[in-house]
């Protein structure tokens, strides 16, 4: 059987995406607006890559948004699980 091609298709999209300085600002805004739900649901081990595909794809290509993701994740781990080192 053929592999699940979704990750490959996403990778192709990501390779073709413009460089950081050319990424549309609306993408970053939408991504960062959605981060709280994305991070919380990821902690609940929901399939966030399927639930929020736009956010998941954008996070891989945008260092600015990924930085926000990392910081919010670290803050949430410390707040909810008392384990800062995990994030």
């Amino acid at each position: 059987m053929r592999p699940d091609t979704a990750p490959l298709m996403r990778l192709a999209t990501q390779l073709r995406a413009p460089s950081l300085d050319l990424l549309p600002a609306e993408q970053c805004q939408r991504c960062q607006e959605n981060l709280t739900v994305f991070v919380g649901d990821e902690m609940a081990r929901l399939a966030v890559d399927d639930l929020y595909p736009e956010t998941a794809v954008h996070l891989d290509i945008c260092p600015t948004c990924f930085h926000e993701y990392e910081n919010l994740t670290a803050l949430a781990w410390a707040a909810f699980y008392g384990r800062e080192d995990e994030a």
Partner: protein
Amino acid sequence: MIEKERLNLAVCTHLVGQYLVAQSWQLVAPDELAEAIFVELGEAVLAGETAVHAIQTQIWQRYAAILHQACCQPGTTTYERAWQELDGWLRRQRRNLPWHDEDREDVVQETLASLQTQLAKNAIKAPRAFLMYALQALRNTAKDMERRRTAVFRGGAHDPLSWEAIQEDTSEEPVVQSEPGDESETLERRVENIVSDSDTRARLKAFFTQHLNSDQQLLIAELHFLDGLDPKEIAGLLHKQPHEIRMIKFRIVQTLRGLPAPEQQRLLALLAQEAGGKIDAP
């Protein structure tokens, strides 16, 4: 304590009670919350750290919804209590934010004010994420204060992380899963389905081996791109948290995006072959 034990209601109640006390959360009785969580998780086979994590996540998400509801109902007996709890909880988070000591009181007060203003206008769409919103608002307020303090402004651009922005109706709606069982498609079956011995797959693997920076990145790339597992599934296999896998995946994608154009074209051609026409060739 619950290592090697099946989840049971007594253990669940004990963990819920401990957690609520540690967070100073009193808007719900521990046994009431524990029962709801047990019903949710009862069928799952959970033990050890996995069980603790699952229960703790259920607690804070459910409590966030309870807190959100109470914070939206002025005039009720729980309203004042809810805002007091949120105040105290935000103060405890300040140790995790790099702000100046003299700003701490202002940061908490400003965050609470922005949350109150927002909730007075409309409730948030995902109450389970209310405490995450509060954390993000706290962080943004601290960042804003730091900017003001150092007088370093970035051209007055709109802050994409402001509470106001969070509430705009532009966030990504979750994609509805067709059936609850879809997510439980077993890992074993997926792995079985995607083991491919095609030449293209071998060439993709060789490409990753050539260009990725570590064995760890190579492993994640194989599991994700070639085996089709998402970060959550890879985390389960490797006994990691999903965000840890996502961080490695981010570095992989950054590495691949940073390759010279001819190499990227070669990769795109391989992807097009492997995807069987679902991806346009370069």
